[in-house]
Structure formats: C-alpha cells, structure tokens
C-alpha cells in the first residue's frame, strides 16, 4: 500500500551496536550482533541481560530517570532542557488515553486555553471540542498523542481521529458574524484539510470494492489521488485548533461542515469576549468562573422572579470548583448524584455540605452549548427536582475535569468523572 504510507519511513534505521567508544570501534564488531552488544553504556539497572527470560517491571520514576539520562548522554544534540522532556512525557501519557476530553496543550496552546476560561478569545472567537462521530467502530489504537504523529501516520494507523466541533461562540465575535453555529465541524483551515478517519474509511471501502470487482481500477485510483492531494496538506485537529484560536491579525479561510454540507467562510481574526455573569434580559447568565457564587447569591437575594431563570448557554468551559460553590447557593444540603468513573476510587458523590435551605426553584436555560461543569449543574439540580431545564438538549459532556499546569508552562485537562444520577442518593 504505497498510497497511504504507513509509518515505515520513521522505522527506518541503521542498527549499530554501541560500545563504550561508540564511534571509535570497528564497524565489524558493531554489526555482527547489533542488538545484544548495545548495552555497556546503559545504566546497570536497566540493561537487558541477554539470557534474561523473566519479565521485569521497572517503577515509572526510575524508568523516567534512566531513559532521561540515557538520552542526555547519547543523543546527537545536547539536551539542555529537562522540563521539555518531562512535558513530552506528560503529552505522551495524556495522549495515550485517547480521550477527546482529556488533552495536552503546549505552552502557547495552554495560555490560549486559560484565557478562554476567563472569557478572552482571539482568532475566530469560538470554543471547540474534539468529538468522535461514528468512528467508534475503528479499533482504538495505542498510538501516542497526535502531536507525535504525522498526518500520514494518523491516517494509516487505526487511531480514532476526532473532529473539531464548535461548541459555543463569543456573541458578535468573528465566527458568530460569519454565521457559524454550534455543532459545525471544521473541515478545512486555509485550504489545509483537517484530518479525520472518513478518508481512511473511504479508501478501505474502495479497496474492498475493487477486490470484489465492484469498482474499476481507475475509480480506485481516483480515490487514491484525492487522498494524496488531501493528506499532503492535512492538519491534525489540534493544529487546526491553534490556527482558529490564536492571533488577532489577518484572515482565515475556513470551510465548515453542517449536516454533511460544506460552507466556505473568510473570517477576520480579532479579539472577542464570552460575557461573564450578569443579568441578560429576564435571566441571569451564570459564567462558571472563580467567584461566580458571590454574584449569584446577590442576584437570588434581589430577584423576585419565580422560578429564578438562569442562563447556562454558551457555557462550555466552566470551572468545576466554581460550579460546586454555585450549587451550594442554589440548592439545600444533600447529595446530588455523583461524578462517576469505572472504579471505586473515582466515584465521588456530588455533595452539598452547607447548602441554601431557602433556595428557590430554578429554571435553567440550556442547549447544546451547555457542557462540562454547567451541564453537571443543570443535571444535578434537575435530578433532585430543584430545577427545570428549558431550551434544548444539553451538550452531552457532563464531565468533571481537572486542569493542571506543569512547570514548563504547558498543561493538560483530565476527565475525573462523568455525571451519574444514580449511585448518589436519589
């Protein structure tokens, strides 16, 4: 299969056995037993003894230290920044989860991500999520994260490549003005096709059809050519995210996909804002940021409306701790379902310790732009009959997410639980 190249090229190697004076010893010596001899430089704790037939497990910290010093000693260029190595390892670990909601962000990306959490946007002024759509049939792969993969490798591997979907828009921001809607998928950015597995699926289908003599060779070659043209200039989803989220100057040509139809737009990048908490019309917009509970409390005291209307739309990246404080303002003491994982240590009841005994009934305005912490809030209140949901279906991402920044300035998100009504006291 020449057309969709596998990763063979990166597996291209010259095997040389090392030895103490690596570049000084005779070629002959090195090549006779390329694998077995290559160990005298590795720390004795990690070196494989050739006859060893037992499976050994090495603790993760020791493993990291040994490989790090091996790289520092042997790599052709001087390795000066050990935090970069750590960040790489974090990227690898987070990426291995293959979870579109647990993501590693490099320093620049993480900065953008943090700004968005306080409502500050650049680029097209939209919030995006990675979603897997209809690709669950492809076996999950053990490949590391997309950052370590070329576009070709991502295509050729069976990795589930998620798509980039708009989850909310800054009101009046560049994308909003261009008619972009939540749910739109990013198809291409500046004529770079955003990679997804559709192409691979299509090619495999064409191959099967050719094998079964349902299509001709020239038809197969047509698909092959199209894929080549596209993959040569393909962008991985997070790279596309970067282009869409960063910068305040210049235009972006973006093609969006809605219900299978494509739409071309030219969008001028600019700063824009996602509004904070405050009264908008006859409802209170609750932006789940630090300190949100104070404003909410005040609003409840002053509001005469029954039920109290709270707008949770355009609310996709709320802070979970802030949400819990708001829940305590909106609801009496009790248990409101749980944040659940697949084992005991990750099941955490959603408990309000000292709640608001006099809390009023609430009507939440929700739709697909209600995700994450906001969605958990809505579902938790609804589960106990404390709130009615009005609007549309929520986003379907009721997760609690941990956000961590590591020393080099990059960071990651980690889903720690998914909201479940049962399991907690109902």
């Amino acid at each position: 299969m020449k057309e969709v190249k596998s990763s063979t090229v990166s597996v291209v190697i010259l095997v040389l056995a090392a030895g103490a004076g690596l570049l000084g010893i005779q070629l002959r010596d090195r090549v006779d037993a390329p694998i077995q001899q290559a160990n005298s430089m590795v720390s004795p704790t990690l070196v494989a003894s050739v006859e060893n037939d037992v499976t050994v497990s090495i603790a993760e910290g020791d493993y990291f230290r040994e490989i790090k010093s091996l790289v520092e000693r042997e790599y052709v260029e001087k390795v000066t920044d050990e935090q970069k190595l750590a960040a790489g390892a974090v990227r690898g670990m987070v990426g291995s989860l293959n979870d579109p909601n647990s993501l590693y962000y490099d320093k620049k990306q993480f900065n953008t991500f943090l700004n968005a959490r306080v409502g500050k946007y650049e680029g097209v002024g939209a919030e995006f999520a990675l979603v897997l759509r209809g690709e669950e049939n492809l076996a999950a792969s053990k490949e590391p994260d997309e950052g370590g993969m070329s576009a070709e490798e991502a295509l050729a591997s069976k990795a589930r490549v998620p798509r980039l979907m708009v989850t909310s828009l800054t009101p009046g921001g560049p994308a909003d003005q261009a008619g972009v809607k939540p749910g739109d998928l990013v198809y291409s950015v500046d004529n770079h096709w955003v990679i997804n597995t559709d192409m691979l699926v299509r090619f495999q289908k064409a191959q099967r059809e050719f094998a079964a003599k349902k299509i001709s060779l020239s038809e197969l070659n047509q698909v092959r050519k199209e894929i080549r043209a596209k993959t040569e200039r393909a962008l991985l989803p997070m790279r596309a995210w970067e282009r869409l989220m960063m910068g305040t100057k210049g235009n972006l040509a973006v093609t969006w996909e809605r219900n299978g139809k494509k739409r071309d737009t030219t969008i001028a990048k600019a700063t824009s804002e996602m509004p904070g908490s405050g009264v908008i019309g006859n409802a209170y917009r609750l932006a789940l940021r630090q300190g949100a509970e104070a404003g909410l409390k005040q609003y409840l005291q002053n509001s005469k409306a029954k039920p109290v209307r709270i707008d949770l739309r355009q609310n996709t990246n709320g802070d979970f701790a802030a949400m819990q404080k708001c829940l305590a303002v909106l609801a009496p003491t009790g248990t409101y379902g749980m944040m659940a994982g697949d084992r005991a240590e990750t099941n955490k009841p959603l408990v309000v310790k000292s709640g608001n005994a006099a809390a009023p009934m609430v009507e939440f305005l929700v739709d697909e732009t209600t995700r994450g912490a906001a969605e958990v809030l809505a579902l938790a209140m609804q589960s106990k009959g404390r709130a009615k949901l009005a609007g549309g279906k929520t986003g379907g991402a009721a997760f609690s997410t941990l956000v961590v920044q590591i020393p080099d300035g990059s960071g990651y998100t980690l889903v720690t639980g998914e909201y479940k009504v049962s399991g907690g006291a109902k």
Partner: protein
Amino acid sequence: MNVGKTIFVGSLAVLGSGALGFVWRDLKQGKMPDAGATSRLAGVRTVAKQSSEEVFRQTFSQIRHGYYRAVKPDSLKYAGIQGLMGSLGDPHTIFLPPRAAAAFSEETRGNFYGVGARLQGDTLGAAVRTVFEDGPAYAAGLRAGDVIIQVNGKKVSGQPIDDIVQQIKGKEGTLVTLVIARPKAEKPISMQIKRARIVAPSVESKYLEGSKMGYVSISNFAEPTTEQFDKELSRLDEKKITGLVIDLRSNPGGLLDTAAELMSRFVENKTVVTMRGRDGREEIVRSYSGAVRNWPYPVAVLIDENSASASEIFAGGLQDYKKATLVGTHSYGKASVQNIYPIIDRSSAKITIAKYYLPGGEFIGRKVDDDGIFVSGGLKPDVEVELNLDGEIEFGNPAKDNQLQRAIDVLKTKN
C-alpha cells in the same frame, strides 16, 4: 483592592502549595501577584518547579488514580517514555515498548518461525505471492498463485491478512495444516507443513526477457542480504545480461554494514559514509577490499521517497562514484544514525547518535516545512520519473512499472 485580596487568599487555601509556588515568584520579584494571572489559574492545579522526574511521577499518579477510566500502569508508563523521547523532535529517536521491540528485532534479523511464503489478502483467504525456495512450504508443494482457504481446519476467508499470518506462524518444529485452492486443480488441496526458522530473502531477482536485462529488488538491508545479492547476481550473470536494474524503491534501509558490503562489490577501500557524532567525533566507514565484482554492463538504481537510510547510503555512494544511474523520484532523506539500547523489561530505546554524510560530502537530511511537507533533502535521481499510478502496477514487470521501463531505456543508451 480589598475584595481582590480576599479572593486571592481564599484561593490559596484551595489551591494549596502549587499555587503558592506560582505566586511566590511574583512576590520575590517585588510585585503584587498579577490579578489576571491568578484568576486565570483559578481551578487550575499547578505543579511547582520541580525536577522533571517529579513532574513525571506526579502526572503518572494523577492519571493513574484520578482519571475516570482504568488505565494500565505499564501502558501509561510506556506512553510517557515515548513522549519523553518524542519531545526531542527527531522522528528517529523513539522508544519501543516490549512488543514493538520484539517485532523490530525480528524484522532486522529477517527470521521468524513460519512456512516460508509471502501472502497477500484475497477474498477467499490469503493468496500466496512468493514461496521461498529453501523453505518448508516449497518442499510441501505450496506454489505462488495458490490461495490458502483453511488453516488448521478453520476457514480464513474474510479475515485480515495479518490474522491469517498469525495463525500460520507458530513454534519451530510444529505442524500447520493448510487447505489451498489452486487455479487449475478441481478440488482443494490439503498439505501439512512443518514450521521452521525462515530467513526471509531480502533480495529477489528476475531475468527480463524482452530487454535481456537483470532486475534485482532489495527490500531491506538485513544480515543475509549481501549473500543473497551475490547469489541472485550469479544467477543473472549466467543469462549473460546486458544491464542491471537494482530496485531500492520502498526499501527503508537496515544494517549499515550490509550497505558497506554491497558497496564493496563496486569499489574497494573507499568511503561509504562519514558519520559525525556529538562533539564533532567523526568516523568514516569504508568499503572492504577484495570483494569487487566485474561489471561488464551498466547499472541503474531505482529509488523513490520511501528509499531511506542504508538505501540512500548505497545508492548515493554508487551515484558519487559514478557506478550507477539513479532513476525515479527523490529519496526520503534520512541522514542520521541510530543506536538501539535494549532495556531489561524487553523494550528498547532507539536514539540518534550521529549524522552522516555521503562520500561527496553532501548532507541529505530531509527538511520539511511547518505543515510537514517535503522541502529538500534525499538523493536527487539522475533521471527523474514519477511512478504512473493510473494503470495497474506490478513492480518488476516493465509493462506495468513505468519507472523500471525508464531505467531499462536509460541502460540501453549506455550499452
């Protein structure tokens, strides 16, 4: 700013020591903490400046215990190490976890326990493409063109080819029963084959009737490659060929020594490659003496973008010493040397330890732009010709392989 301060102190209690570290830097520099920075980091856990090892440990433990789905500790650990090595930005410096490491060493040694045949996917099962003449399958009567429809009594139609191969492979000396469909046979044929250690030939040759030329395809540079090359070449020489095409397309490389041995068939005691390591350490690999063959006919070498590493050293050397004409498209541009470090848990680390330069002194390292698109690097063929993808392709058949046809045409002009 009273309110701001209260919130700030409050957040300290929530965030704990990580946040303290963050704020402490600002305080030490005589600044009030930047309100924007702290509020942005609300709800963000920070890992204070710590050793990289500590960052790794903490993240590992965070994911292992905090992630909502169960994670296999070993997979997580290996993914972390892969990421560590990936952070160097060199696609050739990689970590190979235990399973991948085993497959790699199998690949470079060219040995596996099987029956000695190359298979390809077929609607009925697995089509036999090549049968190695010194393997057990050949002895048992398996021939190219047969289609394997059953393995050990189980139908294999509809299964992926890798799965079928997996069923055929097994322990040395054990038996596998195949049922095959043969084009002209009336009934399926059943045969028992004893699995053996197979040395997969990396060299295959063909006498091209029409042009009276020899075609030698080298699929990779493994340990037995040189011997196989000599053997195939002797066979072709018996036919009194008038030219030779060496096909290195899609040859990803392999052992450097094999490239040097093959070079020794053309030039003796000449630089094959110069390796420059860290701190400017240099080593020159030379071809051996006493192995030069007689070349009474012109030689062409086919390359493409998947020809890399040892392929490029061999082809580049032939080009520099004017021993062959390169035909095809530019090669990959892999100009670095890796070493493999085995690790006690059976994984291994492959690390770039040096860069190499061809005999003419040129560095052919691949350069790509931000989008990963090829900019420069690799060998430039003397005669540039793209593979025609429009028709049916059969490598080694000049009628269905326009690059080979072109190489033959070039050789004809040299006779």
